[in-house]
């Protein structure tokens, strides 16, 4: 099952805005075990540690929602750590010695904006 990749990037929020949310989806080769929510969070922290070290792993990241069926989640991070989190997710290659890929679908400072994706609109 390969969904068409979509990602959005809003202009960076004002300095007062503490959090940024991103909706991201994982893809695994078919037949692999799907991770649970706790394992997903551990995966995110591992990705941060691999790329940005202990300081990166200490970045406060929250998994707001997680759907096991589609393996997609909404993550929340402080805006100063946004680039670190996104780059760490992009460069993650392996999960339990299997290849995997992260795709960030949408990013926004507001949770309401994640309910609709303008990139999925189709022209008639």
């Amino acid at each position, binding site marked *: 099952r390969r969904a068409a990749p979509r990602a959005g990037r809003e202009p960076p929020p004002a300095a007062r805005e503490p959090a940024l949310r991103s909706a991201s989806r994982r893809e695994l080769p078919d037949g692999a075990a799907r991770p649970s929510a706790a394992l997903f969070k551990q995966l995110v922290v591992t990705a941060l540690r691999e790329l940005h070290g202990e300081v990166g792993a200490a970045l406060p990241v929250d998994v707001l929602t997680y759907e096991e069926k589609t393996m997609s989640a909404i993550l929340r991070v402080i805006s100063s750590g946004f680039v670190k989190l*996104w780059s760490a*997710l*992009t460069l993650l290659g392996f999960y339990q010695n299997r290849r995997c890929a992260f*795709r*960030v679908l949408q990013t926004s400072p507001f949770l309401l904006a994640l309910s609709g994706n303008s990139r999925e609109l189709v022209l*008639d």
Partner: protein
Amino acid sequence: GTSKQIKVLNRLTLVVSDPSHCNLLRSTSTNIRLYDIIAVFPKTEKLFHIACTTLDVDLVCINVTEKLPFYFRRPPVNVAIDRGIYFELIYAPAIKDSTMRRYTISNAISLMQICKGKVSSRRGNQVVNSNASGPLELRGPYDVANLALLFGMSERDAKAAVSTNCRATLLHGETRKSACGVVYTVKKPRKVEEEETTVPACKKAKTQA
């Protein structure tokens, strides 16, 4: 709306470790003309200088899998940018191995310090290797643009690195095939009511007087 068909282009990457390998590019053989984009991968500093200044290519690949044996110098890089040649960084090794990740980022940062922004980042040709892991090493365009931020580019350059610079390389390839250059035109819808009001104000005053 209607979408255009996907155009599949051909690309040739020449790995040169010896000056005699460049003879293929210098001679106008028919094999070279079959490819839309020609890239060269120099292994020594002298070849890097030759590739930037004299060779007829569209892209110069920067090695990311090992520490660069030479440092970049500003003169050949500036000449290459003036000629319209872009430098290429691949990110697929960075996904596989942590050592490669370090080399990728360090080489990219040293390149960025020298040429300050006119870089195009692309994916590696890993799709050919195996069935399952091929597509999984690709990343979306905004993800790659974010990676370019890690390499030290500004946000505008990072987005340009996956969009406008790539298109510029394609046009450069087309230019190389033709004799003098390429003009790309786009049809713009014309407004009819504008024509009546385009008389400049000074002209109006003269006719009235």
